[in-house]
């Protein structure tokens, strides 16, 4: 704005009066334009987290809504009773079930992120090496699944991995296995589901950095006698680090809290924290416990989210 206003002021230096009245108008318009989206975000994105934290300190109750009030107003003695229950959090640490679920979610998300990178990097590199219509076509092919229903894409893998599904039929057909293998409802299927659905999130930021990569550096490295592998590890990889970081975080953060993929593709004992939260809320109807689980998940994700924000500030999209 400073640049724009500067020109604006120069164009209007004739009368002081107009200067002030338009300044006021701009200010007013400016603040209303800024405040509408900010207020929406504040009301429906920030404050809800505070509410979650507050309710995580409540006690589960058979009532509507199913938790106790934090503040109770005692009229006779003019006392406000504040009731804070830390039990939900203590329980998170006491019962190894929750700790295991957090650890296994982080593990599953990290391993899937690694494989997404492994598959996504060559694809992004390949697209960046193309030009013109071919590049547009390949990019469209990457983006297209992102536009189609996530739920239905996960569902497609159910038919694909089933006992008498296509993958098993194929493997039996070429004689690699005699008996169909159990692939659906395993951790393996969850890994595949995450890699599959989050692949575009990895490819796009990678492509953006690789596209800007200075080809002359790679040529120089080769001219100086470095082989392709050495060039890759010494030049290409370090220079694409911002894209790798952004892509990995974009996959890792939502994958930690994933619910649909473990619910549809995972075994009943595939522990993921998103699923624990869901069951706590919908099956046990224990809203305070679900809130405590959510608060802890948020605490785990704060560090990667901050990393992503810092990366963005340095100009990586």
């Amino acid at each position: 704005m400073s640049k724009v206003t500067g020109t604006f002021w120069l164009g209007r230096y004739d009368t002081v009066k107009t200067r002030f009245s338009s300044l006021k108008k701009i200010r007013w318009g400016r603040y209303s334009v800024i405040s509408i989206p900010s207020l929406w975000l504040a009301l429906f994105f920030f404050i809800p987290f505070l509410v979650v934290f507050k309710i995580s300190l409540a006690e589960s109750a058979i009532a509507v809504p199913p938790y106790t009030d934090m503040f109770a107003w005692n009229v006779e003695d003019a006392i406000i009773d504040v009731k804070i229950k830390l039990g939900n959090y203590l329980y998170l640490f006491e019962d190894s079930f929750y700790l295991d679920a957090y650890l296994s979610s982080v593990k599953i998300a990290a391993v899937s992120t690694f494989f997404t990178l492994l598959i996504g990097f060559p694809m992004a590199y390949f697209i960046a090496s193309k030009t013109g219509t071919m590049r547009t076509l390949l990019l469209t092919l990457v983006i297209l699944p992102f536009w189609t229903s996530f739920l239905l894409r996960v569902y497609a893998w159910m038919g694909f991995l089933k006992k008498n599904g296509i993958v098993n039929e194929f493997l039996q057909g070429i004689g690699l296995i005699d008996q169909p293998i159990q692939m659906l409802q395993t951790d393996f299927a969850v890994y595949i589901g995450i890699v599959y659905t989050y692949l575009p999130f990895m490819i796009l930021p990678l492509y953006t950095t690789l596209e800007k990569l200075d080809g002359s550096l790679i040529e120089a490295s080769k001219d100086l006698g470095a082989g392709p592998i050495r060039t890759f590890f010494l030049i290409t990889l370090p220079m694409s680090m911002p894209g790798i970081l952004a892509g990995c975080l974009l996959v890792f953060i939502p994958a930690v809290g994933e619910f649909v993929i473990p619910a549809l593709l995972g075994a009943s004992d595939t522990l993921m924290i998103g699923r624990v939260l869901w069951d706590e809320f919908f099956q046990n109807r224990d809203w305070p416990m679900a809130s405590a689980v959510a608060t802890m998940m948020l605490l785990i994700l704060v560090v990667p989210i901050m990393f992503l924000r810092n990366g963005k500030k340095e100009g990586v999209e």
Partner: protein
Amino acid sequence: MTRNSKFLSISSLFGFIFLYAPILSLIIYSFNKSKLVTVWGGWSVKWYAELFNNQQIIDAAIVSLKVAFITATLSVILGVLAGYVLSRMGKFPGKLIVSGWISAPLIMPEVITGLSLLLLFVSLENLIGWPAGRGITTIIIAHTTFCMAYVAVIVQSRLSQMDDSLEEAAMDLGAKPHSLFFLITLPIISPAIISGWLLAFTMSLDDLVIASFVSGPGNSTLPMVIFSKIRLGVSPEVNALATIMILIVAIGVVAAMWQMRKKETTL
């Protein structure tokens, strides 16, 4: 170099097969005559006929389309404002918070967003009596919150690609801020608005987790009905539904991209 590029093209080929094989198999099996989903019994469109006779699915589809339409429109209004604020308004107090957090709803695990919004709605209802109960309104608010972030990001990147010389020229010629916005900025970002609207529409249409948290009884969206059907296993009707949805999206995206490319080359 040739060995290098061969490796790249082969691994990319496998990558694209990985992306598309499950979708293609789903489309093919939607035309399967047999009730046993994996046994091929010849071509047939009977699952499509059954799909259109399934009142539950049709009702849910109507709810979802209604929600998606309003969500997309609201998201575009809020998202354009946010994107404009971030790329054209210079510095203002709290900018870092807005710029850092506008994209946060995109990566936040859906279970957290869903739970937190539900608890907000319940607390608000206790406090001020609004929103009375949960249903289409609460789903729209929840969806708009994460969809506006998509629109904002798209609009912001479009605006940062365009230099502001056109806007400056209009200002020099004495255009008022609001006419500047409607006459210059809005037409410039119209491709971003269209893709933002479409993306918000598909995202809203697709959401299962957040809608499950914030919807009320009798307001099941399409993904909620699909999820309850496929939780028990593969269903041929859902295959047919998926095929229809995927084809509509594919045609829409390809047409939009083609249109946008044409526009960009003429600009």
